[in-house]
């Protein structure tokens, strides 16, 4: 299954003043699109508003033809969206296998076993710890499990919120290059939020720069790296309005 992810003019917040304003982002199947920006720029909030965890006050979110704006998270998941949050990304009291089973909750029961085998093929480490409690895994292993859980449904759209946070640089690079890029190679539309701008630019087809809750710049990694304005907007060089 493949589908385009489109967010048009999304404004959202936690009640009170909106955190993000008028965000328009597009991800086509097979693409890795990254979202970078300083802390507090609204990157996490955008992802949460796309999956229905945060309320969108104006704008629309579309998965292919379907309008999923403000649909409950379980409906968004059924529309083919896999989401890996930044924290609380696994079910700690459940085993690795059970976590994967929950990832495959929407699958017909007879397919679950095969899918788990497939995921273990992608993340062989997981195969050695299927009976271990997810809460006892190391940081890198948890991220792997979180991504494996999302893989279970072979989603059309994958949203990743800072997947390399707290990971060692080498593991981070491998995660981005092999697995995140790999998701797109399989046809998914991947939107990844990252603090490690350099690393994620290397694997992205397109990048949006967020600052102060708005999109400041967008372009291909080549375009952005060549632009002095990129560093400026990334480091907030222009005084807002």
């Amino acid at each position: 299954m493949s589908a385009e992810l489109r967010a048009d003019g999304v404004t959202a917040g936690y009640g009170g003043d909106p955190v993000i304003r008028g965000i328009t982002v597009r991800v086509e199947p097979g693409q890795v699109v990254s979202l970078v920006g300083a802390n507090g720029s609204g990157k996490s909030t955008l992802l949460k508003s796309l999956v229905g965890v945060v309320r969108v006050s104006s704008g629309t979110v579309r998965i292919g033809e379907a309008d999923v704006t403000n649909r409950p998270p379980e409906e968004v998941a059924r529309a083919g969206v896999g989401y890996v949050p930044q924290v609380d990304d696994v079910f700690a009291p459940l085993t690795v296998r059970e976590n994967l089973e929950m990832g495959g909750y929407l699958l017909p029961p007879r397919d679950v076993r095969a899918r788990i085998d497939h995921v273990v093929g992608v993340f062989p480490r997981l195969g050695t710890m299927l009976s271990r409690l997810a809460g006892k895994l190391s940081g890198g292993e948890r991220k792997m499990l979180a991504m494996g859980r999302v893989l279970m449904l072979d989603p059309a759209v994958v949203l990743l919120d800072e997947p390399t946070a707290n990971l060692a640089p080498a593991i981070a690079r491998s995660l981005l290059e092999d697995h995140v890029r790999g998701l797109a190679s399989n046809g998914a539309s991947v939107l990844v939020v990252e603090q490690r701008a350099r690393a994620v630019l290397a694997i992205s087809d397109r990048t949006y720069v967020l600052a102060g809750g708005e999109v400041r710049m967008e372009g291909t990694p080549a375009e952005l790296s060549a632009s002095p304005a990129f560093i400026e907007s990334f480091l907030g060089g222009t005084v807002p309005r």
Partner: protein
Amino acid sequence: MNSFYIINLLLYAAVDAMACLGLSQQFGVGGVTNFGFIIFQAAGGYAAAILALPSDSANGGFQSYIGGWNLPFPIPWIGAAIVGGVIALPFTFLVGRRLRGDFAAVGLLVTAVLLNLLATNYRPALNGAAGLSLIPQPLQGEYNPLTSNYQWTLTAAAIALCALVYFFVRRITESPYGRSLRAMRDNDVIADSLGKNLLSLRTAMLVTGGAIAGLSGGILVSYITAFSPAAWGYAETVVLFAAVIIGGAGNHLGAVLGAVLVPVGFEEVTRYIPTSNNLPPNLIPSLEWVAIGLLIVIFLWLRPQGILPERRRVIRAVAPAHPPEEPVLSPLPNDSAPQPHPAPTIGPAGQGPGGGRPAGREVVGREVVGQEVAGREPGGGEPAGREVVLQVIGLAREFGGVKAVDGVSLEIRRGTLTGLIGPNGAGKSTLLAMLAGTLTASAGQVLYQGQDVTRLPAYRRARLGLVRTFQLASEFKRLTVMENLLSAVPYRPGGNHPRVPGPVPSESPGNRGDSLRGALAGRWYWRDDEAAAIARAQALLEQFGLDGHANSYAGDLSGGQRRLVEIMRALMTQPRVLLLDEPMAGVHPSLARRIGDELTSLAASGLTVLMVEHELAIMDEFCEPVIAMADGTVLAEGTMAELRRRSEVVEAYLVG
């Protein structure tokens, strides 16, 4: 309607109202949810009984109980209050700990049932299930308790004591101490960081509430001359809670109203329901309980604040147009050398070099912004030339093997607005927390005005003038903006001998009324301190443009306005060094600029600010120098423009 009926009604009303006042104080004002409240009333009742009764062997021998000293009035009542208060002390264990609210409630409920069970079954103590009877009434030797006059006098005494309790409770609540209680109720973590001693506040709540409940039990026992465990099951606590919730928690008249409506009201209403032989005898009492349950749920849903909600405390500054009676910032000595220990202020005579705390209502006549402090040059030249007010040497902090801050050394100069930037995980917030004292350092030193404060807890540093704000919402929602500011004013011991150990701030005024004794002493005692604080708060509100909202509840303001409240609250403590943790986060750019402007003018008057911020545009406009951190260490220092040109800073942000 004979007079004994009215006496019964009034006396029960007085006793219940008294108990509800104690509970309202604990629960509504102090935020202490004590589901074992009935135990205090029971303890008082039993205490009065065993103090008044003759010894059990001399009393006909069919009751068995401890005590029995046959003491005359008013000792049983006094004893009841004392026992009620003392028995509350062990409860601080369950209530003060960081246990989930509902778990603690369950624990207290269970304790009440447990004690009731023990009293019921352990006959030698308090005559078990049958309870105590034939309890002597006050002065029954001299007067005949069966006469109408006696009963009226007893009732009048009960009502008088209830009124006394009302005023006692009011005096505590309508004082700076009461404000600290309400602050603790709204947000105990922040109250703690402002220097309020939570344990002492909660203990005071429990003990005073316990004493009041105990007294009510003693009076009750003197009237009905009998007392058994059936009178104080856990259902009775639920009734009292229902009364306080329905009447209005946190409003003392509401507590009285609740007492009249619920325990008394229900009792009376059932009198007038016609009984018929077709109805089973227990139906009415059962339906009463159902009704109380319904009222609890309905009120919590529709009107949780109760019939008489907690009053908004409206405070008007005495003379808003006049210059404040004390400067917003403490005047600083004109010495440009590193500061010695602040000189302790004992009595009116002890002053440090230059300035010092102005006494009483002396009008100093200084302007608020850009003021010339006597004997001191504003600015004092280039930032590099001013003295170092905050010095960090090799500071480090580890979390389970991960070095969040790895050997940072800094010098912050007086009167500067220093920015602290860096990508996520750089260690900025950790560093700030260590400077403020809300987090202990694993290694290194923090020197404030030359004094080593590395081991000093946050509230002590705050008293010395090193103050921080918090990233997340930290206003007291159910206090007005003015009250939020006033709550930051610390306690100052009255008289010549401060009981506060350690260095006493010389220039940071306090409020004598922020203690139980101060509150009980009455308004005259703390009125001056309060007025001075109000004037300072009013000046700040005008300066930041929020004086129109002075009497709005802080919880009703917008996010940006609440940020301002937090900054103003920090400024109320007259800090020398202000540590701001992302003050502009989520703030509208024009408001952010306003905050920046205010901070700049305050810096020009000698305030030193260190600000962690992500909005790098703010750094551009207001901060110099800016310190860039990454991976727990300092990368570079300079203006924002300079930093942007440094490749290692850019890399740090891009690598993330």
